[in-house]
């Protein structure tokens, strides 16, 4: 009797190769743009060239005259169907096609459907729009100035450009703590606008079949079930006649959660024409019109005691929301989870105020690899932590050690109400310091300084809330943030698993099978995973916010356990003993008193269809819906060493050490891939990447010459380490990890550069730390702001 070897069958902890890669690396994926339906027409969107203007007239006659043009859709026509505007996921409205004004450069004004995409584009060029330009607003300061032009004059009762106000914490208690402080550290900074920029742009093929009344939409959605619900609610189509299919997706990063005008237009055009209509966004369209991230201004303070303890925190945040409040975030908090800031530190009291501003920029505010503004929160946290340590003249590692929540404090309630439940924060920090050789580096740095070289080290430690939600606090359109899995085990013991999540590169097809393996002992290779088709997958809320493993992954465990429970009955029947006498080991039930007498899970599967006991229904299928009791709280410690060239401001990354505690790792290779990707994005954001605007509201970053993605050449190497503190409430102890490095990483890079400049008096340089900004800081000794507008 040899036991099933869990790693051998690709179970928990196996660095199993990604099964989906076999088709991706051969160019055999099936993306939305690969799908071609008979009789399919092509749609192109006409976008506004200006940021803020009243539309005086739209003349479409020349477009209609082009042979091959089938439909020219304007806002006015959409309005006849009550579809010129649509609700957003943040309870605002957003224009589908502009009727009154355009409110950002790149806004959708009209669309053309033609026999081929070239003709559709010709059609767009033939449309004549007369604009009356209005002053453009590109930052919250301009937006909130008393004489600012009103952007949302479409909204009844809206008299200014304030989009929301929000507040949390204990103001009086915080004020008292600040009054007692030995020292107060203050920091102001701007986290620049960035864009998730997936390689595959957004797109859809809407196919309304007039004969059956069924609408099928193939589209690039991270959350197909939400889209189905939204289409049913907004377009008032019957939900059973809507099928949303998300085929392979070439990266999402949060960009493919919202509902975009292009999707809606393709659906409307297909209904009007009774033909399949394909829309494929181009790169510039994606960069200038779809969900951005960040664009947030912080001004905050820490109250400090002489011995290094933090007594209280407070900050105000202004968010630049763009023209419509369409944050795709499911929490009941207006500014997402920004109040998870400082959750890893033991700070008794705090107070946060926040305000959103409408501006003439693209809307979105989505999470670019981030759970609803935790990236900004953790960035500000780690930047002001570094500043506070400097103000106290304390070593930044020691300052963290003094303030981090201790292991024996869990479960720990933060001043803003979150419950962090597990972690070994100091151990992670010490492991990181050890790995990078902290003490030795500090000596090297001093010696180098004597020779005119500027070295610096940056630390970032943080825990973040991943895996929305729990149903108390998180919902979309009233639908709670659970997730689901359905498992069907076939007679020969092979299985198909479907979940309500949707992989965009995360490797669900590989990882989910490993969870089934771990629970049932079926080899991972015998489990096929399918997601993204609302006609076949169980209802789920999709993949973003690192929620797949915490929520859908938990559902996979739970459904497997249901299957195991039924298989136990079958095993008892086959072994002719009572159920209580049956024991489980991976892949096999056996008789407790006679361990050699056993049946495999595969034998149970066959019995489920061919030899079931009386009274037991046939089949070995089930599903599970999982509502997580809490978020998961991974912890990370990132350390970066840089060298700054003081003559040019160019900085090179010499080392990056990462210690991640994301609980139990299902597939360590995939986890490392996620961390590597996240650190790459962190490096990009700190070093080169930003989406900015000039004074007229022109987007500077509408292409890959201006919006930079790092290549393998300049991306530094990463040294990865792990600590495992299992999540106490997740069935297999896993926590989210997809976002940690992108969330916690940027501050480590910025802190490192500022450490190299520690003798200059410079406290802040806004990201990205472009060479000219670093040079300016060195030569002037002053902070450098990166807030738009920029000169072009």
């Amino acid at each position, binding site marked *: 009797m040899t036991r099933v070897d869990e790693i051998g069958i690709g179970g928990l902890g196996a660095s199993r190769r990604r099964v989906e890669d076999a088709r991706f690396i051969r160019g055999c994926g099936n993306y939305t743009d690969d799908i071609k339906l008979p009789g399919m027409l092509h749609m192109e969107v006409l976008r506004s060239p200006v940021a803020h203007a009243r539309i005086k007239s739209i003349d479409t006659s020349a477009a209609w005259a082009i042979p091959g043009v089938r439909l020219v859709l304007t806002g006015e026509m959409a309005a006849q169907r009550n579809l010129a505007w649509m609700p957003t996921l943040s309870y605002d409205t957003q224009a589908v096609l502009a009727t009154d004004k355009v409110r950002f450069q790149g806004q959708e004004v009209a669309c053309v459907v033609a026999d081929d995409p070239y003709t559709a*584009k*010709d059609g767009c060029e033939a449309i004549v729009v007369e604009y009356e330009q209005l002053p453009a607003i590109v930052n919250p300061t301009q937006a909130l100035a008393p004489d600012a032009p009103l952007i949302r004059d479409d909204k009844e009762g809206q008299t200014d450009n304030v989009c929301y106000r929000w507040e949390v914490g204990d103001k009086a208690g915080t004020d008292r703590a600040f009054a007692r402080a030995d020292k107060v550290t203050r920091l102001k900074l701007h986290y620049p606008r960035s864009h998730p920029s997936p390689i595959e742009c957004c797109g859809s093929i809407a196919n309304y079949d007039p004969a059956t009344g069924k609408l099928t939409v193939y589209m690039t959605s991270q959350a197909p079930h939400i889209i189905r619900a939204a289409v049913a609610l907004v377009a008032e189509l019957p939900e059973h006649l809507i099928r949303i299919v998300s085929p392979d997706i070439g990266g999402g990063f949060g960009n493919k959660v919202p509902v975009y005008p292009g999707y809606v237009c393709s659906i409307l055009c297909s209904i009007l024409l009774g033909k399949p209509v394909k829309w494929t966004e181009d*790169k510039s369209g994606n960069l200038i019109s779809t969900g951005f991230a960040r664009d947030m201004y912080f001004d905050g303070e820490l109250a400090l005691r002489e011995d290094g303890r933090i007594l209280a925190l407070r900050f105000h945040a202004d968010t630049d929301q763009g023209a419509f409040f369409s944050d795709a975030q499911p929490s009941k908090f207006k500014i997402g989870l920004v109040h998870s800031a400082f959750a890893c530190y033991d700070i008794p009291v705090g107070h946060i105020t926040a305000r959103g501003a409408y501006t003439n920029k693209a809307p979105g505010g989505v999470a670019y690899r981030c759970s609803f503004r935790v990236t900004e929160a953790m960035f500000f946290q780690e930047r002001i932590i570094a500043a506070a340590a400097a103000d106290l003249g304390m070593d930044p590692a020691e300052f963290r050690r003094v303030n981090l929540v201790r292991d024996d404090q869990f479960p720990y309630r933060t001043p803003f109400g979150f419950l962090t439940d597990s972690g070994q924060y100091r151990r992670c920090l010490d492991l990181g310091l050890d790995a990078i050789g902290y003490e030795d580096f500090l000596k090297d740095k001093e010696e180098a300084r004597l020779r005119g070289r500027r070295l610096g080290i940056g630390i970032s430690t943080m825990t973040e809330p991943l895996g929305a939600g729990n149903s108390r606090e998180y919902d979309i359109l009233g639908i709670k943030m659970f997730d689901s899995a359905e498992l069907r085990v076939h007679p020969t013991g092979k299985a198909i698993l479907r979940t309500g999540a949707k992989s965009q590169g995360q490797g669900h097809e590989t990882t989910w099978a490993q969870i089934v393996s771990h629970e049932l002992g079926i080899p991972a290779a015998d489990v096929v995973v399918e997601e993204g088709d609302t006609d076949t997958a169980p209802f789920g809320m999709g993949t973003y916010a690192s929620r797949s493993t915490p929520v859908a992954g938990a559902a996979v465990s739970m459904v497997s356990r249901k299957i195991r429970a039924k298989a136990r009955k079958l095993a008892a029947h086959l072994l002719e003993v009572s159920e209580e006498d049956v024991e489980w080991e991976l892949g096999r039930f056996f008789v407790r008193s006679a361990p050699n007498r056993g049946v495999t899970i595969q034998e149970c599967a066959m019995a489920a269809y061919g030899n079931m006991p009386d009274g037991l229904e046939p089949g070995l299928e089930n599903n599970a819906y999982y509502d997580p009791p809490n978020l998961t709280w991974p912890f990370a410690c990132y350390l970066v060493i840089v060298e700054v*060239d003081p003559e040019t401001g160019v900085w090179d990354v*010499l080392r990056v050490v990462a210690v991640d505690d994301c609980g139990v790792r299902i597939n360590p290779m995939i986890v490392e891939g996620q961390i590597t990707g996240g650190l790459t994005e962190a490096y990009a954001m700190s070093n080169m990447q930003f989406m900015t605007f000039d004074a007229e509201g022109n987007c500077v970053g509408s292409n890959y010459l201006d919006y930079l993605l790092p*290549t393998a050449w300049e991306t530094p190497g990463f040294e990865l380490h792990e600590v495992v503190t299992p999540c106490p409430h997740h069935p297999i102890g896993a926590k989210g990890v997809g976002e940690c490095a992108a969330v916690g990483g940027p501050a480590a890079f910025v802190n490192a550069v500022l450490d190299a400049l520690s003798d200059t008096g410079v406290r802040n340089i806004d990201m990205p730390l472009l060479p000219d900004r670093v040079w300016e800081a060195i030569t002037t000794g002053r902070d450098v702001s990166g807030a738009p507008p920029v*000169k*072009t």
Partner: protein
Amino acid sequence: MYPARFRYEAPRSLDEALALLAEHGDEAKVLAGGQSLIPMVKLRFASPELLVDINNVPGLGYHREAASGVLEIGALCRHVDLEFSDVLGDLRPTMAAAAPLIADPIVRNRGTLVGSLCHADPQGDWASVMLALDGEVVAVSAAGRRVIPVTEFVTGPFQNALRPGELAVEARVPVPRGVPLGRYLKLERRVGDFATVGVAVAVETSDGTVTRAGIALTGVGANNIKAVDAERVLVGSTLDRATIAESARLAAEAAKPRTDHRGSEAYKRHVVRTFVERALHPRPAVAA
């Protein structure tokens, strides 16, 4: 990105190409590596009626040293050919330094030096190299052939001196006399980026004294700039510290940068100065 309608011809000989260009004049555009033209056409920044693809024209892929010692670079010589060239050798250090800094490997596989000169992008690297080296362009048409110095070839941003019907068949670089010292320094935000600032330096010395000096700048003006005064102070010097500093100062003065999202005017000027100093007075870079 869908271009407007255009006609496409792929002539198989130079004569055929020239005939097409003669016939269509202004309406035709030559397609060489396509690394600038195709994006422009796809973005509809350019909508030529006819593309004359010269990639099937035989015998234009060369770069070679002529008997006279002049370096000749054919219209289909790709960036990558120069990157891995054994013709450039020690005699053309500025070119050897620039080639691997153009764009990224994918673009270098297709793009051409001559195409880059014709495109006349002020952020293009080759034009600076050619200005520093006193290069020339050979233009041919059905009517004949002429040789144009690069100083006159680039006439404005994205404008060159070619007449309708003319094809640039070759670029030329004169023979270096004396010991060549050359570098190309480029500040880019990442691989494949156009230069925030680029500096081409090509100096020839004889017994330690400078006999010829070329300095040209990328990305700091409406065109690539030949920093004539900065060149002049070097000639006759022994590349002593003071002269290098003066040359660097003059080069920075010749630059006409604009503040944009890549950097401020002051910063770009400062980098020109730093790069000229570093190029002429090579020492280990401060950053590793």
